[in-house]
């Protein structure tokens, strides 16, 4: 993908989808097929969904399955959900392409599908998306980084699990931005699997390999944090500028303490939006193919409103009411 592709996507997202055929009366049974749940971001997104469901009395049941990163299991999970006569399927994929077929079968069976929180997906199997553009987010992060390092220098990129939509689009966005900054050299692209310890170890090796690193492109706060520790422990924090991360609480704490980096949000309320879109579909109202949940840039100076110093690192800034916050 590049800028043009992203623009095309935005256009395609704005297209309205006719949902009359999905119209249904309550009580409603909503199936949620999680590609994975062992990740605090999706836990928060799911809690948003639950919160939203509690606001709609017609939603009688919310059935959640977890494929634990196994796409074949996700296919099976969705099949099992369909067997339980759900009226709406919300999902986030382990891997977009892998679930395309089964989703198509769902739609053919009259069950509308809404993709929550992942990348925007156009396929017969996905009626609508509540999406965060990883590309836009990546672009915002990259541009902010370019600004902060003054448009020249040597940078490294830390991306999540190789092969995921997030990793792919963040890299595409970075490369698109870098095309405008010929004086910036991309030293290395690494995959830290959203794992702080792994990101730290990789960074320790990067520090060994490269005597000078001007900037770090890392849209995921939890990996940024591991990287920051590595720079700090190598005594090289002074030379480097961090890109914004997301609103991962541990990262926010670091931003607050160090006064740099900031955050480009990756809002967990995408889950809530997904259910809202789904309920619209069930009412038969036309919905846009993609409802973007916009990311915002929060500068380090303004981070105070976002950070919760008493919450764990593995926590997300959100508007969830207390009753729906994950147990701490």
């Amino acid at each position: 993908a590049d800028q043009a592709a992203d623009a095309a996507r935005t256009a395609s997202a704005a297209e309205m989808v006719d949902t009359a055929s999905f119209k249904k009366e309550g009580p409603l049974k909503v199936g949620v097929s999680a590609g994975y749940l062992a990740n605090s971001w999706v836990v928060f997104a799911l809690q948003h969904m639950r919160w939203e469901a509690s606001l709609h009395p017609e939603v009688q049941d919310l059935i959640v399955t977890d494929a634990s990163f196994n796409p074949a299991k996700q296919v099976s999970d969705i099949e099992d959900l369909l067997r339980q006569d759900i009226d709406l399927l919300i999902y986030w994929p382990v891997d977009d392409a892998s679930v395309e077929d089964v989703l198509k079968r769902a739609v053919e069976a009259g069950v509308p599908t809404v993709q929550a929180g992942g990348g925007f997906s156009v396929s017969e199997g996905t009626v609508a998306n509540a999406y965060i553009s990883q590309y836009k987010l990546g672009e915002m992060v990259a541009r902010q980084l370019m600004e902060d390092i003054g448009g020249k220098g040597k940078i490294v990129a830390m991306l999540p699990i190789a092969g995921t939509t997030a990793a792919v689009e963040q890299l595409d966005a970075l490369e698109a931005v870098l095309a405008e900054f010929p004086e910036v050299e991309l030293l290395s692209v690494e995959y830290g699997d959203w794992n702080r310890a792994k990101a730290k170890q990789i960074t320790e090796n990067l520090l060994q390999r490269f005597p000078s690193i001007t900037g770090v492109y890392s849209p995921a706060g939890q990996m940024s944090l591991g990287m920051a520790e590595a720079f700090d422990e190598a005594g090289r924090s002074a030379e480097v500028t961090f890109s914004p991360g997301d609103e991962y609480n541990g990262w926010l704490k670091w931003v607050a303490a160090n006064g740099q980096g900031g955050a480009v949000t990756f809002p967990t309320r995408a889950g809530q939006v997904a259910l809202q879109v789904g309920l619209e579909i069930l009412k038969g109202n036309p919905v846009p193919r993609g409802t973007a949940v916009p990311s915002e840039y929060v500068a380090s100076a303004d981070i105070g409103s976002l950070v919760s110093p008493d919450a764990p690192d593995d926590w997300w800034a959100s508007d969830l009411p207390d009753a729906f916050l994950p147990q701490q």
Partner: protein
Amino acid sequence: MFRMRWRMVEHNAIWLLLGSGALAAAMFVPAFRDPENLANVMRQAAVLGVLAIGQTFVITAGMIDLSIGQIAGLVVVLSSAMINGDTAMTLPVVVLMLCVGAGIGLVNGILLNTLRLHPLILTLGMMSVIQGAIFTYTDRSIGRTSELLTTLANGSFLGIPLSAIAVALLVGAGHLALTRTRFGYHLVAAGGSPESARRAGISLSRIRLAVFVISGVTAALAGLLLAGRLGTGYPLAGNGLELDAIVAVVLGGTALSGGRGSVIRSIGGVLLLACISNLLNLLEVSAYLQMFIKGLIVILAILINQPRKGEA
């Protein structure tokens, strides 16, 4: 007399478990007995079923193959990349993939014969190597499988899933091979007592080669089915499948120490696992609890299927 009867019970424990479990499930969870749901269960079990057939051969021969999950994963990625939605490519690619599976199996077998390693260690190492190779090749989903494979994996004929029919045919072939051919007899003997088999003129190294080639080919077949299910080449698709296959085989009463095994009972094990997973989903048991339960099932399975005294 008593011993004989106990042997009968032991041999058919998996059917008792599966039968009583399925019956109870059908009675108390109406969604379970829905024919479409049962067809789903079979569809979901197909990949594991194919793997379990190969692993039955391996384990009966007294060995183990931990690399099958990654072989399947490799085939998912390679076949999708090469077919890339072009149905005409299906046949050549399928043949090629079977060769890839056989080739890796052959490498396993040759290394085992020349390095004289414990198969557990060899295939553990292999698993890591193949996984690294897959990732080095691609770190993201690539390509598309063909319509043909998708149909095979998800379609049905007269309400019976095509993949289940395919597995049934394979099971038949596997069962015949293991119980009605010289090769099967020799394999069982080699697993039961390698030294005795060697003295009876059975070439252990040839059995090892054959068994790992079978394992590799079934892994490749499983990979093709999996590709059909996923529709695309996802690099992590094979992760963890080896453990599931071993558990299914062990549940089916095949002794990890070798010399006893039945393809049909292994399929019983696969069906049991698939039913449990389906039920847990139907009962909305949280995925975490499912994971915990799965671990317990692994533990229980091997506790139940301990080697008898003197066979360890």
